């Protein structure tokens, strides 16, 4: 008897699937590409939760062009090779607009798949060339660019009166661009008295950074600007401190992560890092509501890109709504550049290159294991 009931129920479910789909219009597909697995997953998930928040809000208010939004997510692990696979999958899944990707290198390789057929907004890819090169007609970002971070680092070093600076990078897209920009910043102002005494790239994932640390010691640099991610930075910090090299480390948003403190422990104290301005600190009812909502649904921290992703999604949805769908990318682009949208991250409008207008970076210092905002 029970088996028969089950069979009937199963049949009913089978039948009801297509029936209900006939009643509702097709869902509106939005793609998300980013690091959802691997050691940079905390960054990718932060952006994903931001998108999720905006989608839930929009769906509750009736959806996009009258259709419910469905998010299709693909993991790229911040690896350019995986990113192009993820992008190909999204393109094949009938998605026209994508939020992501998390890392600059991965974003660059995904963009070569999207070309001029799909539109991408990133909450976290900061490499300058992505917009500056003019190669990507449908790429936008709500985060500041690396040159804003590098300029802030240069400003900081000058203001605090350091004279000798070492710059190291991990030879990657993101790290090297930051390092180059900072070096150019110091070279452009020779009368400030700041000298770059060491400028080198190191191989990521090495067992030992000893040789370059020896060089750092003999260069007598007071501060070290690190262009790269937190995993190498924490190893560098540990090995520097164990060799009694007390050069102050200054990183960018790739270092600005709880994991850096966790891995470097004591050695992390006193490290500086620039990062996108922490929007969750702004007091507004919209932000408080988003924080409250996130706490209810997830156990993880919101992470650094939540509001940048939520803001990007809201601006994107408004532009799509106005264009009447995602068929005409040129119309969406025009809306993104011409209209200012009030979002949870503040007013969002993009310039001709695709960068958000008014993006800022902030300097943080690690004090007692916490990233604390500091004045220059």
């Amino acid at each position, binding site marked *: 008897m029970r088996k028969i009931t089950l069979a009937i129920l199963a049949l009913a479910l089978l039948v009801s699937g297509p029936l209900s789909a006939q009643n509702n219009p097709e869902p509106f597909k939005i793609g998300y590409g980013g690091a959802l697995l691997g*050691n940079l997953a905390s960054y990718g998930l932060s952006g994903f939760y931001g998108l999720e928040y905006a989608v839930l809000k929009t769906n509750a208010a009736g959806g996009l062009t009258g259709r419910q939004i469905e998010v299709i997510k693909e993991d790229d692990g911040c690896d350019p090779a995986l990113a192009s696979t993820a992008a190909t999958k999204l393109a094949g899944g009938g998605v026209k607009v994508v939020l992501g990707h998390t890392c600059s290198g991965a974003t660059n390789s995904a963009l070569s798949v999207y070309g001029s057929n799909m539109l991408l907004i990133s909450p976290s890819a900061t490499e300058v060339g992505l917009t500056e090169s003019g190669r990507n007609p449908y790429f936008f970002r709500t985060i500041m660019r690396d040159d804003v971070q590098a300029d802030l680092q240069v400003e900081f070093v000058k203001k605090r009166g350091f004279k000798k600076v070492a710059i190291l990078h991990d030879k990657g897209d993101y790290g090297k661009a930051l390092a180059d920009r900072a070096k150019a910043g110091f070279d452009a102002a020779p009368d400030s008295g700041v000298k770059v005494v060491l400028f080198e*790239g190191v191989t990521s994932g090495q067992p030992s950074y000893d*040789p370059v640390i020896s060089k750092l010691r003999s260069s007598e640099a007071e501060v070290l600007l690190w262009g790269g991610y937190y995993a190498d930075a924490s190893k560098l910090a540990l090995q520097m401190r164990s060799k009694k090299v007390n050069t102050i480390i200054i990183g960018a948003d790739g270092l600005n992560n709880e994991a850096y403190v966790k891995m470097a422990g004591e050695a992390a104290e006193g490290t500086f890092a620039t990062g996108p301005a922490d929007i969750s600190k702004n007091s507004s009812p919209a932000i408080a509501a988003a924080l409250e909502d996130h706490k209810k649904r997830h156990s993880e921290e919101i992470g650094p890109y939540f509001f940048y992703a939520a803001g990007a999604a809201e601006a994107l949805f408004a532009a799509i709504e106005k264009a009447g769908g995602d068929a005409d990318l040129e119309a969406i682009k025009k809306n993104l550049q011409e209209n200012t949208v009030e979002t949870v991250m503040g007013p969002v409008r993009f310039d001709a290159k695709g960068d958000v207008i008014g993006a800022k970076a902030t300097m943080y210092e690690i004090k007692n294991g916490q990233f604390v905002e500091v004045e220059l």
Partner: protein
Amino acid sequence: MELFLDLLISGLTKGSIYALIALGYTMVYGIVGLINFAHGEIYMIGAFIALIASLALSQAGLAGWGLLVSVAAAAVVYSAMYGWTVEKIAYKPLRGSSRLSPLISAIGMSIFLQNYVQLLQSPNFLTFPSLVPELGFLAPVSHIVNSTQLFIWLATALIMTALTVLIKFTRLGLSMRAVSQDPDMARLSGVNIDRVISSTFVIGSALAAVGGLLIGCYMRQIDFYIGFLAGMKAFTAAVLGGIGSIPGAVLGALVLGFAESFAAGFISSDYEDAVAFVLLIVILIARPGGLMGAAQTQKV
């Protein structure tokens, strides 16, 4: 001058790190004639076991030298078991087939073990405790040499000597040499080939575990991927020194370590890998068998 001394010590440490792993490569190659690409992964597993054991044992109240020794014992025993199993699963069934089959099987094993640890343990970097106690007499020079570094040097020298003695002067060593020269003849004269080859893998894996423990203490963080880069460099070192030769592996590793260190110090760390590999090519052109290897003609 101080930079030179600093780089010399960095090079020595880097070289010793490579040597700890290269010894296992070269021993297996010398006796079985197989490039065991899974060796780097055994080293990584050794580091993970050391981390787990150190967390468990320090909970149980152990500290200092007692903790270090018991963690080392746990890592050695467990990794040796892994080495034994890998040989039984991936290499033994292919013994006697073409030389390429076990090579492919080794690469497969390496990928399998990496993914296995990633799924079972963690895809993230994990903090590794500094298990080697600080030595008082090193305090005045602690800015250039710390006790972990000293320990890595000593372990490398000790293991190299012990292995040489084992192979030259013991009964097991005699059987190993016999198997290496002519497996069929060795079998006819009553050598249990299976047991000799298993022992080779067990010893090689135990060494990798010691390497994993000490290098973990030095790097202070590990992840599932550390075996790949370290294994590549160690393999290079073993080839440089003459694969199959025990002192050759250490010499090759030290040459590689010094080359990288001085290239980073006096040229630029942008070029350290390039310099190391140019050196490898130059040495192999001049001495195709490696620094201490006999020239052989029937290689893969």
